[in-house]
């Protein structure tokens, strides 16, 4: 079995764990905050999207590494 394929799968698979948890926490807390004071919903949504974008970019880095591993294996 080609180890670089395994490396690619591991890179994105392991790299997605942290951001997945992080995005879950951000989304949950945002909904919590929205429940407490719905009048600032717009601001919360904006901040939530920003926070998710930051957390998500970690997973995207892992994805880029995975693609690099994939494209250099030949």
């Amino acid at each position, binding site marked *: 079995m080609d180890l670089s394929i395994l490396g690619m799968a591991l890179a994105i698979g392991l790299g997605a764990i942290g951001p997945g948890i992080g995005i879950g926490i951000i989304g949950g807390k945002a909904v919590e905050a929205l429940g407490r004071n719905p009048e600032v919903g717009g601001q919360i949504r*904006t901040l939530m999207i920003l926070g998710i*974008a930051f957390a998500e*970019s970690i997973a995207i880095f892992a994805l880029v590494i995975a693609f690099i591993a994939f494209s250099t294996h030949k």
Partner: protein
Amino acid sequence: MLEISIKPEVLGYIGAFPLTNAQLTSWLSSLLLIVVAIVVGVNYKKLPSGLQSIIEMVYEFFQSMAEDAMGAFGRRFVPLAMTFFLFIVVSNWLGVVPGVGSLVSIHDPAKAVSAGIIPFGAPAVMAEAPPSADATVEEQHAYVPVFRGGNADLNTTLALAIIAQVIIHAMGIRTAGLAHHLAHFKNPLEIVTELSKILTFGFRLFGNVFAGEVLLTVMGSLVVVLTGKLAPALPFGLVGGAIAIPFVMLELFVGAIQALVFAMLVLSFLSLFVKTDQSASHH
């Protein structure tokens, strides 16, 4: 079987400069935006309708966001944020238009046909060899896509990121003065943070768009991959296309969100460095 390339493919050469398919699509989206701007500007009405009202909605959205970040002073950064947003969203959406990525220019007809490409129309334009001998010759693909989503190329997104960071710091120096601006960097780690912002800006956009393109490619060819039969025939194409439809919608959403995030981050990073008169009186 699936040809996935991180690099944009070179279509031809203008002088010594390679013209890539991502570059071509970026120009196309710029052209589209210019045409829309001219059409809206020429047909300007006091009571907006149609296209003008959409543009004004986007403008008002960014105006309120800039005012949230920097007060009335932030209004001068609305055009900047909106330019980033519009360019990125148009390039991202151009990336999922049928034909972008699937329309190919054939270099090696025999290999391309055996890979399932259906040739039609005029004979393909060959990418000419680079004019100077020392220019590196790319490995010759059997076929290259004519269009490629502009942000599915790391060069485009890094360029956008560098433009954003340079403007953020230039505006910081201009509004707060050089001495005050440099005071942000008493801790040398801050310099690393600023440099890494270029990377995160660039990689976030590139990663999202490129991953989206790969996702669409995989979903569109899912039937072919699963059955192991390379069938360019109509039924497989239709099934693949039907499977890809929900993901196309996802990509439209992601494309808009990423453009929004980019513009929002530019505004919020600007507010870290730009000194506004209002913020001095508020705090």
